C-alpha cells in the first residue's frame, strides 16, 4: 500500500509516539506573529525557559496590526521585537519590511517540499501549496515549538480533491476553493488534510495554489496540500539554486514528496470546474456559497482587496484588469492592501497601484488590517464588505458588519458598480 504525502512527511519527521495514534513531529519551521506569540514568550519567561530551539528555523513578522495603532498593539509588537533581537533571530520583519505572514514567508523561500510547518495562526495551511505539512496551532503548541522544535498531531487522513476540466475565463482559484468549501462544509475536513490534485492544480501558479490551500481550514482541514512540481521548483529556484545542479535535479529530489498512486484516501472528491462561474458567500459561514449571479445587485459599503488569501501580485493584476480606466461607485469605499513590500513594489512597477488610485481606492501598507477587523478598514454596525479574504464570520471585520467573500476580479467589479457584480459583465 502506498502512502499519501502527509503520511510520508509524518514518517520522516516522527520524533516520538508517546501513545498509539499520537505523533510528535520535529519541526522545520516555526512561524511567529505579534498576536499569538507574545503570550508564549511571556509564559516561557515566567517558566525561566526563555530559549529558542533553533533561531534559523524560527521566522518572525509583525503583520496583523502594523504600524501599531495604539499602545496595546505597540506593546505586542515590542514584546515580539525584543524577543527576536534577544535571541538573534535573523529573519525578523518589522515595519517597512513586513507583510502578511502567509505571503511573506513563502516569498522569502522559507517553505520547501516535505517540510513540517507550524504557526499560531489558522491559515498556516496555506504553506501546504509547496508540498509541506503546514498546520495552524494555538499558543501552547507554538510555545513548545519555539522551545523544543516539536509538535503533536493525530495522524490526519487525507481527502483528495481532484479538480478536473478547464477553468473558464474570468473564474479563478478563489472561486474554485469557495465551491469546494461549499461542497465539503465547514467541518467536512476536520482532522483531515485536503490534497488538491488534477489538471487544474497542475496548471495553477504557486500564488493560485496558495489561495486554494489557504482556505482548507474553512472546511476544518488541518493542512491543504499540493504536489511539488516544476512550478514549485521555478518559484523556489532563486533560493535553492546553490543546493541543486539543475532544476531537473531539484524536481527529482522533491518527487519524494508526492503521494503514491496507490495511497489510501479517506475520501476522493471529483469536481469538474468547466462550468464553474464566479462564486460568493452569503450569511456567516464560509460554506454558504452561491454563484455571484444569485447575489448580483446586493449593495455593499466597502471593498477590501488583500489578505493572505488574495493579496498577492496575481490577485492585484486580476483586480486591476477589471478596474483599468474605471472609477469606483460614489456609494462605496475601496481599500487595497498589497500583502508584502515586494508585491507592493511589483504593483508599482506594473502601474497597478496607479490604476487602483485612479479608480479611487485607498492603498494601504502591507498588513492584515481590515481582514480581521483590527485596523485599517473596520466596518460599522450594519455595514457590508465585499472582500477577497477568507472568513465571513459575523463581526469578523467589525461588530455588526457583514462580509461577502469573493475573488479579486469580483471585488473590483463590485467596487465599480457598488453592488455585487460578475466581472464578466463589466
Amino acid at each position, binding site marked *: 500500500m502506498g502512502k499519501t504525502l502527509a503520511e510520508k512527511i509524518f514518517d520522516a519527521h516522527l*520524533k*516520538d509516539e*508517546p*501513545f*498509539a*495514534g*499520537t505523533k*510528535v513531529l520535529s519541526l522545520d519551521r516555526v512561524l511567529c506573529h505579534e*498576536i*499569538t506569540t*507574545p*503570550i508564549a514568550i*511571556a*509564559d516561557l519567561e515566567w*517558566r525561566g*525557559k526563555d530559549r529558542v530551539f533553533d533561531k534559523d528555523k524560527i521566522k518572525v513578522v509583525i503583520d*496583523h*496590526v502594523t504600524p501599531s495603532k*495604539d499602545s*496595546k*498593539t505597540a*506593546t*505586542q509588537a515590542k*514584546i515580539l521585537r525584543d524577543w527576536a533581537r534577544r535571541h538573534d533571530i535573523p529573519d525578523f520583519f518589522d515595519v517597512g519590511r513586513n507583510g502578511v505572514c502567509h505571503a511573506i514567508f513563502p516569498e522569502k523561500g522559507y517553505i520547501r517540499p516535505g517540510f513540517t510547518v507550524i504557526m*499560531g*495562526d*489558522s491559515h*498556516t495551511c496555506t504553506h501546504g501549496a509547496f508540498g509541506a505539512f503546514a498546520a*495552524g*496551532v*494555538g*499558543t*501552547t*503548541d507554538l*510555545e*513548545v515549538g519555539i*522551545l*523544543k522544535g*516539536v509538535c*503533536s498531531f*493525530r495522524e490526519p487522513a487525507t481527502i483528495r480533491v481532484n479538480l478536473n476540466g478547464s477553468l473558464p475565463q474570468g473564474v479563478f482559484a478563489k472561486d474554485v476553493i469557495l465551491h469546494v468549501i461549499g461542497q465539503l462544509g*465547514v*467541518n467536512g475536513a*476536520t*482532522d483531515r488534510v485536503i490534497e488538491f490534485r488534477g489538471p487544474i492544480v497542475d496548471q495553477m501558479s504557486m500564488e493560485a495554489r496558495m489561495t486554494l490551500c489557504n482556505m482548507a481550514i474553512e472546511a*476544518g482541514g*488541518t493542512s491543504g496540500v499540493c504536489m511539488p512540481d516544476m512550478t514549485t521548483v521555478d518559484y523556489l529556484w532563486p533560493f535553492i539554486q546553490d543546493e541543486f545542479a539543475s532544476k531537473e535535479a531539484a524536481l527529482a529530489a522533491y518527487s519524494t514528496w508526492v503521494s503514491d498512486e496507490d495511497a489510501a484516501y479517506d475520501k476522493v472528491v471529483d469536481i469538474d470546474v468547466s462550468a464553474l462561474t464566479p462564486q460568493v458567500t452569503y450569511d*456567516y*459561514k464560509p460554506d454558504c456559497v452561491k454563484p455571484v449571479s444569485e447575489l448580483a445587485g446586493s449593495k455593499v459599503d466597502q471593498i477590501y482587496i488583500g489578505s493572505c488569501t488574495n493579496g498577492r501580485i496575481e490577485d492585484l493584476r486580476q483586480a486591476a484588469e477589471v478596474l483599468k480606466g474605471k472609477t469606483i461607485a460614489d456609494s462605496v469605499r475601496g481599500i487595497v492592501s498589497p500583502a508584502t513590500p515586494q508585491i507592493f513594489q511589483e504593483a508599482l512597477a506594473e502601474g497597478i497601484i496607479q490604476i487602483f488610485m485612479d479608480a479611487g481606492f485607498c492603498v494601504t501598507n502591507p498588513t492584515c488590517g481590515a481582514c*480581521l*477587523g*483590527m485596523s485599517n478598514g473596520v466596518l460599522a454596525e450594519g455595514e457590508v464588505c465585499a472582500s477577497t479574504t477568507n*472568513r465571513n*464570520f*459575523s*463581526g*469578523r471585520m467589525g*461588530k455588526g458588519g457583514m462580509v461577502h467573500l469573493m475573488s479579486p476580479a469580483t471585488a473590483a467589479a463590485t467596487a465599480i458598480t457598488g453592488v455585487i457584480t460578475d466581472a464578466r459583465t463589466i
Partner: protein
Amino acid sequence: MQKKFGGSAIFLDRSDINTDEIIPAKYLTEVTKEALTPYILEDLMLDGFDPKGEKLKNATVVVSRENFGCGSSREHAPWVFEVNDVHTIIAESYARIFRQNMFNCGMLAIELPKADIDQLIALQQQGAVSVSVDLDGQTVTAKAGSEEKRFSFDISQFDKALVEAGGWVEFADARY
C-alpha cells in the same frame, strides 16, 4: 496540576460556534489571559443568550453542538473559558485546533454523540443542570431536579495525559 472539572452547566444549543464569537479579534491585543475575562462569548449569535447574564457567570461547564470552536487558532478562546472557570466543554464535535488547545491547557473537551447531547439539553426542563466528570471512569453524570443521566465518553491516552499533567508544556518539558 490537574484542574477541577464539572459543575453547573450552560447550554449553547447551536453548531459551528466560532472563535470570533467566543472572543472577538479586537480583544486579541491583551497580553494577559486575565484581561480577557469580561469579554467571554460577547458576540455569540444565539437567541436569548446574554453574555453578561448570571447563567453564564455561574457556569463552569459549557454544552454545545457540532464543530465547536471553529475558525481561528487563537488560544484566547480556551483561555477566556479558563479565566471564567469553565474548564469542561461537552459537545458533539470540535474544530481540531480548538480541541487541541483545550487539552494543551489541561482542560477537557469531551465529545458525546448527538443523542446524548439531546438528552443533556432536554434535562434542562427539570431545572438547573449540574455535571460531574469521572476522568478515570470516562463518564459524565448530569443531574437536574430528581433526574440523573450518565454518559460515557472516549478520551485518547494522550489527551488524558495532558489533562493529568496540567497541559502540553508540562508534558513536553518532562519528556523532550
